[in-house]
């Protein structure tokens, strides 16, 4: 009985459903409430769910990177930016229903187009598929075949961070 209850396949399916639920709930929380702190918490929830999806896609390394970079760095810096700005508990104007309706129409249209593309394309796996998922291979590719892209990404990140420091510090020096 217990063996049947904790059948590995069933547990895997339940875990997958839980991860999908976490992702979609987090995405809705990230968009719906007016208080922006709830939005950031919903975004963190959604990104954790996406990390779980990456785990189900067979890549623990990318799942860990997702947790580190997105949940650990980006969400925290958004929270810092919120704390730097004015308290948001002042009464906000009501959200205009026309704008919400128009945004929903555009979003549903995009979703339908994407779904039709996904459904009507005949996806074919590559003829010869390797099965080398290891971190060592990723590291070797990053330093050999994708060398230039790796360096360019590092340069972009460096320039972006220096620019961020300059932009946010420049406004302080100059009284407006």
């Amino acid at each position, binding site marked *: 009985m217990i063996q049947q209850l904790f059948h590995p396949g069933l547990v895997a399916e339940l875990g997958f459903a839980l991860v999908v639920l976490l992702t979609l709930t987090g995405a809705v929380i990230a968009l719906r409430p007016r208080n922006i702190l709830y939005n950031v918490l919903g975004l963190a929830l959604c990104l954790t769910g996406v990390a779980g999806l990456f785990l189900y896609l067979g890549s623990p390394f990318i799942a860990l990177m997702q947790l580190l970079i997105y949940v650990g760095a980006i969400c925290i810096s958004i929270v810092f930016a919120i704390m730097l700005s004015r308290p948001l508990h002042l009464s906000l104007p009501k959200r205009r229903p026309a704008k919400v309706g128009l945004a929903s129409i555009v979003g549903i249209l995009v979703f339908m187009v994407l779904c039709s593309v996904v459904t009507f394309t005949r996806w074919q796996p590559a003829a010869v598929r390797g099965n080398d998922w290891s971190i060592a291979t990723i590291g070797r590719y990053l330093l050999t075949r994708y060398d230039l892209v790796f360096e360019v990404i590092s340069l972009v990140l460096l320039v972006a961070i220096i620019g961020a420091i300059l*932009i946010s510090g420049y406004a302080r020096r100059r009284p407006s």
Partner: protein
Amino acid sequence: MNSLYTYLFIGALLFSLGIIGLFMRRSLIGMLIAVELMLNGASINFMAFNRFLAPDPAVGQIYTLFIMGIAAAEAAIALSIIVALFRRLRSINIERAQELRG
């Protein structure tokens, strides 16, 4: 259940939710959150293609890493611009930012 279509639909759903948020929100941080959702939908797609179709299963993971790096740079720049804008206008509402127009 654990097939290519499931992941593609989840990615499409996240992307559309991001678009809805991008059009619906007026605060700049809310729009940044929506953009992060869209980027995550894209990286789910990359990982799903990598898992089910690609000839070399390391390449999709490398692409996802690159997307994360770009997202980090974009978040840093966007947040610093938001902070600078807030210092100048005392608001992070996107409609107030139209005052930047010449």
